């Protein structure tokens, strides 16, 4: 019975997230479209509402081209590594009070581990394609993800110290009982570092170097087509959703809100996640792209020292206030 309940939970979460991913692409095109004085998709269905479905069907039926010099096994495996590590992270996210597929003690650590695994997919796809652009994209990505992983990990240490736990549900509970109700105010430095690292971690503008369209064509997935390409795409968007969830849980108070919405326990959580995702799109429409070495300099010289300083600050205040 317990097992069945878990399976049902998995199905629900997976279905809901997949639907969100499909419509995240639609909203991205709509939001950026309106920011750029154009309409976005309008043709498929009313206001282009069926566009994600049409895209999915198209990608599914496209020819799966595998370059002759590619290392076949690795080439097949790389998008799966990306996708599986992204989807598995969903298991520990508490969407509302008492709802998490696996309420484990080291939730935050587990998510870090999986997001590091995802970079293997990127590196391997760049390597196995045996294409120069894909290779450069893979190199850039490995360097970027590794350095920003550190910044992101350090930025959340302050939260862990304040909550005294790595369990995501406990972190939300600790915030609800803290004086500010959310950790955004005491941990604003950590939040700043987290947001920047979050953009870099998911390879989004202004840190979308691995897939810098104008330099490296499409970066590490240049040689992928059809459904395999779509798997990378899915992984990227699920990654965005997961990073938004982490941000919401660690800094914005999770599912808690100013007032209780009856019947919709996940209301505030979802709203906050949407805000984060909107922020992703907004940044994409506004900012140019960093250069590879500038990105590394920002990560190592600004973000990591800031995060370390935040840890020291948090620790000092915590020990003083007892």
């Amino acid at each position, binding site marked *: 019975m317990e097992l069945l309940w878990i399976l049902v939970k998995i199905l629900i979460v997976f279905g809901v997230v997949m639907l969100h991913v499909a419509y995240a692409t639609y909203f991205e095109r709509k939001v*950026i479209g309106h*920011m*750029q*004085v*154009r309409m976005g998709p309008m043709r498929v269905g009313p206001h282009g509402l069926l566009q994600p479905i049409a895209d999915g069907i198209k990608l599914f039926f496209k020819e799966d081209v595998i370059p002759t010099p590619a290392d076949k096994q690795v080439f097949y495996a790389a998008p799966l590594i990306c996708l599986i590590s992204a989807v598995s992270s969903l298991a520990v996210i508490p969407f509302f009070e008492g709802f998490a597929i696996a309420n484990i003690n080291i939730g935050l650590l587990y998510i870090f581990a999986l997001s590091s695994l995802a970079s293997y997919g990127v590196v391997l796809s760049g390597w196995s394609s045996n294409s*120069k*652009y894909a290779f*450069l994209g893979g190199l*850039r990505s490995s360097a970027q993800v590794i350095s920003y992983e550190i910044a992101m990990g350090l930025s959340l240490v302050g939260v862990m110290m304040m909550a005294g736990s790595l369990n995501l549900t406990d972190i939300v509970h600790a915030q609800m009982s803290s004086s500010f109700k959310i950790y955004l105010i005491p941990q604003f430095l950590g939040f700043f570092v987290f947001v920047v690292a979050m953009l870099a971690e998911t390879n989004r*503008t*202004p840190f*979308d*170097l691995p897939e*810098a*369209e*104008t*330099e*490296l*064509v499409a970066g590490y997935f240049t040689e992928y087509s059809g459904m395999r390409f779509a798997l990378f795409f899915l992984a990227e968007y699920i990654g965005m959703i997961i990073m938004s969830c982490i941000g919401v849980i660690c800094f914005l108070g999770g599912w808690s809100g100013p007032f209780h919405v009856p019947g919709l326990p996940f209301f505030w959580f979802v709203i906050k996640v949407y805000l984060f995702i909107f922020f992703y799109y907004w940044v*994409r*429409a*506004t*900012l*140019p*792209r*960093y*250069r*590879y*070495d*500038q990105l590394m300099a920002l990560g190592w010289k600004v973000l990591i020292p800031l995060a370390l300083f935040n840890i020291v600050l948090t620790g000092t205040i915590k020990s003083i206030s007892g």
Partner: protein
Amino acid sequence: MSANKPDLKLIKNDTPGGENEAYTVAMGPQHPATHGVLKLDLELDGETVIKCRPTVGFLHRGVEKLAENMSYAQVLPLTDRLDYIASMANNVAYSIAVETLLGIETPLRAKYIRTMVMEMARLTGHLLWLATHALDIGAMTVFLYCFRERENLLDMFEELCGARLTTTYTCIGGVRQDVTGHFLETLYAFTEEFPSRVKEYETLIDQNRIWLKRTKGIGVITAEQAVSLGLTGPSLRGSGVDYDVRKHMPYDAYPFVEFEVPIGSEGDVYDRYRCRMEEFLQSNSIIRQCIEQLPAGPVRAEDAPDLVMEYNPAKKVAADATFSSGIIKLMEDRDRYMQGDVYVAAEVPKGELGFYFVSDGHGRPYRMHIRSPSYIHIGALPYLCEGYMVADVIANIGSLDVVLGECDR
């Protein structure tokens, strides 16, 4: 030079198969950021460009050779296909060159109209440059903002001559048809709004820290280097050289309008960008002055040649000097068109576009050479790119503003 530039001597460039063998990447001819079919053979060390070798000619259509089999008037549509982003400017440049060759005086009204459309072409050209340059560096919203205004200008071209891109609006000795009142009103309304639009682009990128990091100190070219490489237009002025064909060898109505030539100082990508941004406003003001001063009168010279210019000049019956032999000779009327050669240049959005004609007195050029700024600017790419990073190659291509249609001709 710049602080970002690494010491190239430290980078070993071993023989093929060696431990330090350079990583070669063929960027183009099919690449989203090479603005057409430019091919760059890059040798990389990590992400640093050690060697950059441009290859051109993928878009060669033999315009210069084709012109030898056409009358001067028939060549005009070919010039549309040079810099197809601002074809009006090419039309004007070509017409001025042929007029100089044939000694035709253009009516004043036509001169004003041509100056006006040339500046409109400069706006369309610079708008597309800004759009693609910003997109290359990653700012995608600027791209669509620019296309909004470019669309307005192209609509006006359509109203003026029925074509949006390949205009063929001018003709030798004037312009094809007069402007309408409605056109002038639309254009004037546009010039009133345009400066605020330029502000809008600037709010997105001008002070943006990422934009400054990507453009300042990148692709530095000193004034001496720029002159010796033959750069012209904003690419030269960005290095601080005050040279503008419109100012120094004025043609059409440029002597009658007031404008400034923006000059940069550092010679980096950012200064070239600033020069072009200033030119938006200068061109805008020139258009306004042209509309305000537009005189009445004909728009085409009386002696403007027909589309069909004879290849074999008309034979005229000439009597032998003495007439004693009783033989009547047929002499070639070579006085009809000037013999000799002429080089005339005009300032198009990309730089100095020059036409060099060798005329043997026929209605067709014996030889036509086009001095296209893009071709010469591509020659400067290795100097700009070597020692910088891959991402800077893209910024440099954008800042030189090359169009392959003009480069390959």
